[in-house]
Each structure stands twice: as structure tokens, then as C-alpha cells.
């Protein structure tokens, strides 16, 4: 049972595919767009762009540090470089280059991390990006976006490319449920309320948005009315939406496919603490590395399930 299935959401495209196709389309009208790849374009899906615009696609080999700083140079010359690799190899392997060649000089580089989370499955922990959001959010001036479904990713890709400044976009490997069948009302930095409710709020991003919708449906049967917020932009964060949710519903649970420290949960907790302290709960991978296995089995084993969100909501709600 995939996340979102219990809510009747159909399975849609993987967010990496949505990103890759959007990038290729945008390449037709924007000749400043270039890609810098580290030998994984067929995985990150920058390949369609590279095939369509070979003169604007650079594959520097398995050399992430070089890849990132090359992108910094291109950006300094007015290009809009999209530099994509697995989230772990991009953020973790080239972090100082991202700091010094992108964030500190505030250059217009579009970082894209694919294969985020544990749901990549069988390749195992060495290929899983689960520290990436913490790393990206730590960098001053970098906009950080984690879209939930294909439609949201298309809009997020456009918005990141239109923004003048460094961005980090996180996409996943496998197919995910469709949260926005009629297109996504996406605005950078603006949370989307995908379901309203009055007793508690679930704030989620990525594939935990459909998971949160499943949980809200289950909780409705118990008489707990849940608001569900898709907080796709972690930085800059929508403080108003978080503060309103805290004040109006009195309990908040944050669900994400990331480590416990430094992700969406930490970001939301800071805002809640500063604006309207209420009981909170956190659903995430915890403080541990995962293992190889099938994607669904891993999500179940590491507690990224609607049931885990339901438990967390009950607990936070009970502490009101």
C-alpha cells in the first residue's frame, strides 16, 4: 500500500521525472539554462535536457566538488546552471564547494538532489540522501524546496529557475501519489493547506504529504479533525501558516523523509517556539542510517507510515 493510496490518490510520476521533463521544456525558451552533471544524468533525469541541448550540457565525470564549483563559475558569467546529482553526493560530498562557490558569493546556481530519502530502496544507505535538507538549510541565502508530487515539482522547478539566487530542490527516485490532480497552486515560500481541520495540524513535505492525508482520514474516524499542510519550501519558511496552525489547532506533527535533526521538523519547531508554543510530534527516519531493501518495506520498517503519523497526532493532541 503506497502512501496516499488510502486517500484514493492515484500513483503519479516520480518527482525526478517531473523535474527532468520540466527542465527540458524550460530549456526551449531560456538559453541561459545549462546543466552540470557528475556522471549521473540518466539517474537525476537531466539527460532529456542534455540530449535536446548538448551544447548547454556539461558532464564533468564522477567529480562532485569540481561539478559544483564549475557551476559557480558559470553562474558568475550570467548562466543559470542546474547542477544535479544524488542528494547525498551533491550536498554531502561537495558541501564546502557549495558553501564557497555558491552560497557565500550568493550565485544563481540551481542545486538539485535526486534519490532523496530511504525510499530509493535496494541500493542502500550509501546512496540515500537523508542529511541533505539539514545541510542545505544551514546555508545562508539558499532557498530549499521539497515538492510532494509531480505537479508540485514542475511548478517548483519553474519557480527555482525564475528566482535570482541559489536554490536547492529535492526530488525522489520512485513514483509517488498525486496530491494535485488539477495542477499545484505553488508559490515559493507559501505553504499549501491541502486539507483543513481544527484539532491538530500535520505539516509534511515530499512523499509524507500523501501519508499525512491518509493519517488525517484515519483520524477523522476517531473524531480528530486534522489540518494538513504541504510545506514544500523549508527556507524561507512560511511563518504565518505555521503560527496560524499552532494557534488554531493547538497541536502540530511534522512528517518528512529525512533524519530527525535539522530537517523540516527542526525548522517548524523553531517557528512554533517563537510564535505559539503548542505540543508537537515528529515523524522521520530518526537518528540512524537505514539499510537495503524494497522501498515500501523500508518505509514501513523505519516508520514513515500513515499509522506512525496517526500515533504522533494522538500523542500531541493528548498533550494539549
Amino acid at each position, binding site marked *: 500500500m503506497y502512501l496516499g493510496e488510502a486517500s484514493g490518490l492515484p500513483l503519479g510520476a516520480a518527482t525526478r521525472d517531473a523535474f527532468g521533463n520540466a527542465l527540458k521544456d524550460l530549456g526551449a525558451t531560456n538559453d541561459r539554462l545549462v546543466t552540470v*552533471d557528475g*556522471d*549521473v*544524468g*540518466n*539517474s537525476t533525469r537531466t*539527460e532529456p535536457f542534455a540530449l535536446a541541448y548538448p551544447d548547454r550540457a556539461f*558532464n*564533468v*565525470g*564522477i*567529480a*562532485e*566538488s*569540481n561539478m559544483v564549483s564549475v557551476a559557480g563559475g558559470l553562474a558568475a558569467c550570467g548562466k543559470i546552471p542546474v547542477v544535479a546529482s544524488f542528494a*547525498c*553526493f551533491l550536498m*554531502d*560530498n561537495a558541501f564546502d564547494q557549495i558553501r564557497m562557490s555558491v552560497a557565500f558569493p550568493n550565485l544563481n546556481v540551481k542545486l538539485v538532489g535526486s534519490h532523496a530519502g530511504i525510499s530509493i*530502496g*535496494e*541500493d*542502500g*544507505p*550509501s*546512496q540515500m540522501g537523508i542529511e541533505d535538507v539539514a545541510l542545505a538549510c544551514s546555508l545562508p541565502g539558499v532557498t530549499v524546496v521539497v515538492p510532494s508530487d509531480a505537479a508540485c515539482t514542475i511548478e517548483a522547478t519553474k519557480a527555482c529557475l525564475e528566482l535570482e539566487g541559489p536554490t536547492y530542490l529535492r526530488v525522489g527516485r520512485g513514483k509517488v501519489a498525486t496530491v494535485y490532480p488539477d495542477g499545484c497552486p505553488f508559490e515559493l515560500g507559501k505553504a499549501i493547506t491541502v486539507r483543513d481541520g481544527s484539532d491538530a495540524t500535520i505539516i509534511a513535505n515530499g512523499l509524507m504529504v500523501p501519508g499525512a492525508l491518509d493519517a488525517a482520514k484515519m483520524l477523522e474516524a476517531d473524531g480528530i479533525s486534522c489540518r494538513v499542510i504541504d510545506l514544500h519550501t523549508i527556507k524561507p519558511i512560511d511563518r504565518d501558516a505555521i503560527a496560524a496552525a499552532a494557534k488554531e489547532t493547538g497541536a502540530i506533527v511534522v512528517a518528512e523523509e529525512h533524519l530527525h535533526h535539522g530537517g523540516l521538523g527542526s525548522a517548524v519547531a523553531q517557528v512554533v517556539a517563537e510564535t505559539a508554543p503548542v505540543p508537537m510530534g515528529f515523524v522521520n527516519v530518526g537518528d540512524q542510517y537505514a*539499510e*537495503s*531493501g*524494497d522501498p515500501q*518495506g*523500508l518505509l514501513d*520498517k523505519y516508520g514513515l507510515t500513515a499509522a506512525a503519523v496517526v500515533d504522533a497526532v494522538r500523542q500531541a493532541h493528548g498533550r494539549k
Partner: protein
Amino acid sequence: MPELSLDDLKKKATQIRELIIRITTEAGSGHPSSSLSATEVVTALYFGGFMKYDPKNPSSPDRDRFILSKGHACPVLYSAMAEAGYFTTDDIMTLRKLGSPWEGHPNMRRLPGIEASTGSLGQGLSIGIGHALAGKMDGRNYQTYVMLGDGEMGEGQVWEAIAAAEKYALNNLTAIIDRNGYQQTGATKEVLDLTEFQPKIEAFGWHVQTINGNDMGEVVAALKTARGVNDKPTCIVSKTQKGYPVVPLLEAEGDPNYHGKPFSPELAKKALELIG
């Protein structure tokens, strides 16, 4: 540390290849072609009398070390280690399944005899330097072997390590580059053409040999020569074919690189017939 004859080494390599194909096809994912190119070298290390090891005492401080820096090729390592008695061939049939310690990339915290957790390319040679430096500090007489991919050689860290190994005159360190001519997105010539490794690494002060790494005789001879060098680190540029010896089958599938793709049951059957 068994020391098989050349003929028996070739037979052992065939058994290991059969296992590589079986376990990756059973898993339905993984990197058989990257494993097959490296089979002669890994077989010779474990069965040609080059590495001293004891599967019953895998953490013995005097053991020789093998670090698979190109961790995605772990099916060849798991298969050789199963043949060597670290675990069984049934065990490794659980490759990549939830709960199995035979993960998609080597995890030293879950399996005996795995010297490094790899899978992020570029780090294994540096880890090997750590082992080699510790061996010198502790006065231990072990050798550290590190296998790298030719695409992996694009990582800057590898060249930082090459420089450092020369500085410390690590004659107890041997790097083996699996020069199979392909990386993930295509031929190394097209992605990042590092041309000849031998003169480059020689220029860093290493002893370097270039051999046909799918020829067991050449592999054994090169490992012997490397063992005899005692004043500098050694490197073997092992020219191989990715997917050897079933490359014609992969070509017929339209993808001689076959990177990160398991063989379908039908292809596996053909491949097993071809090598058997």
C-alpha cells in the same frame, strides 16, 4: 590463504561469476557488469595466495586488507568471500533484500571481513592509506589492496590520496584500477577521458604496471611483482572488459556498458551457459 594453481584460479573465477549473475538476477537490481570485469583480480587476491586472512578470525590485526572502493561491485566481493568461507552461498542469495546484511553496497558494520563501508565513490584509497599508516605505526606486516573504478578516478580525492601515499612511501599499499572503459553515463573516453593512468601515477612516484586484467596469468604475475616492490606504493592498471566474458550478450541487448542493470532471468540463463 589458499594458493590455487592457475587452472584452479580460472575455475574459481568462473564459479564466482556464476554467483554474481545468480545473486543479482535474484535481487532484481545491482551491478553485475561492474562485478564481472573485476573477477580475475578479486579471485586472485583471495585464492592466489596473495592475501592472508582467516574467515574464522576476520578481525585479526595482522590480516591483509581488501577495500572495494567501487562498492557497487560488491557482488564480486560477496561471492568471493562466500567461496572463501566467510559466509555461505545461500546467505548471499538474500542480496539487497530487507533485513539482509548483504546490502547493495558494502557495510562494514554488518558483515565480517568487510574493511570499509563504500558506495560513495572516491574514498576507498584514502581509507586504505589509513590502514597502511596504522600498519607502519604498529609495526605490522600486512598489505592493503584497494580496488577503484576507472570512472571513479575522476574524483579529486583519489589524486589527493595518490599524492599522500607517495609522501609516506606506503610500500604496504596497492591500488588496482579496474580499467573497464565505462562509467555510469557512457564510455570513460567520452565522459572524462583520463587517457593513460600509468604515466600519470608514475609521475606521482608510484610503481605502476598495466596488464590485461581478465587474463588470470597476467593478474597473478602483476600481483607478484607488486609484492616485490618495497620502497613505494604500487598500482596495477587492470585493463578489463565491463561484463567480461559475456560482453557479446550485452552488446546484443544494445548496451555494452550495462551499468547498474541486473540480467533478466533469460539473459542470466544465456550468460551462465556462455561462461559455464
